[in-house]
């Protein structure tokens, strides 16, 4: 079973993502900030990380940078999920090594599931 780490400080969004992905047959790990997220990533080696940007304490961009410099985690694909829509922010995320960048308010959960499956190479219905 593929393991997905969700790092998101907004609890309703965290719960929605976990709920939907669990029903799709993934196992999910949850973290409410970047520091916890980073530790979970290093201990549990998830197959993919969904990462929010604005969070208290360590934010998503910082966590992404830390993931990418660590040989243990640098190959885990990261999808940034944020409500910041500036092109400059998106480019920054992609340059920092994210696989893609989704604007939460503009995507459905269905789109998130689709892109997760695509990145993990699992059967896309």
């Amino acid at each position, binding site marked *: 079973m593929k393991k997905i780490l969700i790092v998101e400080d*907004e609890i*309703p*969004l965290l719960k*929605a993502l976990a*709920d*939907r992905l669990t*029903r799709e047959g993934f196992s999910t790990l949850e973290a409410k900030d970047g520091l916890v997220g980073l530790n979970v990533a290093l201990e549990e080696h998830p197959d993919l990380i969904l990462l929010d940007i604005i969070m208290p304490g360590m934010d998503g961009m910082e966590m992404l940078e830390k993931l990418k410099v660590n040989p243990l985690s640098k190959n885990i694909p990261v999808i940034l999920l944020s*409500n*910041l*829509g*500036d*092109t*400059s922010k*998106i480019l920054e995320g992609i340059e920092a090594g994210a696989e893609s960048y989704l*604007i*939460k*308010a*503009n995507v*459905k*959960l*269905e789109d998130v599931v689709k892109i997760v499956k695509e990145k993990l190479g699992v059967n896309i219905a």
Partner: protein
Amino acid sequence: MTKEKEIDKAKSEFVSLASHQLRTPLTAINWYIEMLQDKDVGVLNDKQKEYFLEIYKGSRRMVDLLNDLLNVSRLETGRLKIEPVPTDLKAFIQEVCKELQPLVLEMGCHLLFKLPEKLPEVNVDQVLLRQVISNLLTNAIQYSSVGKAGQVIVSLAVSPKEYTISVKDNGIGIPKEVQGRIFEKFFRADNAHEIMVDGNGLGLYLVKQIIDAFGGSIRLDSEVGKGSIFYVTISLSGMKAKVGQKGLEK
């Protein structure tokens, strides 16, 4: 910086912040509405489905409004960046039309093309031109397909110096007295209100701002009850890169 510009900048930053703040609870609303319709958590009855559809439509409208407000605030503070890239215009127009396929199907509209066979590549800012075409098309589809199957024709004509994209519909038309006002922020004509098409009056304002930034022009021909045609003309050499920081919301 002048006092006035400072105020403008502060205003726009406030709009931008407020829009971002509003997006989070809206995302929660949208995602949970979506999950309520997942069959594996249980099936809603028809009445409940009908209610949820209305909630969903309302909240989608709010998302659109926030995106438009963010774009307006970026355009108004001149922070816009223009990044032209060589583009196959014909393929590009078809791609934008394809993205609107769900609306075309929902409204039961006929969408036709009159595009030339072979074209040289043209330098355009794809994010901005997409916004222009998609706003004009959305209007043409929405304002032509209430109570009947509307017809919308998208054409492209290229001359040595410039190209013109036109969007024609056989819809409700725009009264002569207000044709000069439809590019104003939040303006909507009474006949648009009457047929109950959702809107916020920001679409054409955005279109005009973008075309101005391109150094292009837009004009229209319209008659109430017959239909409308919008022409956008942009110079082939005119779209110059402009340094800025921010792009638009889709």
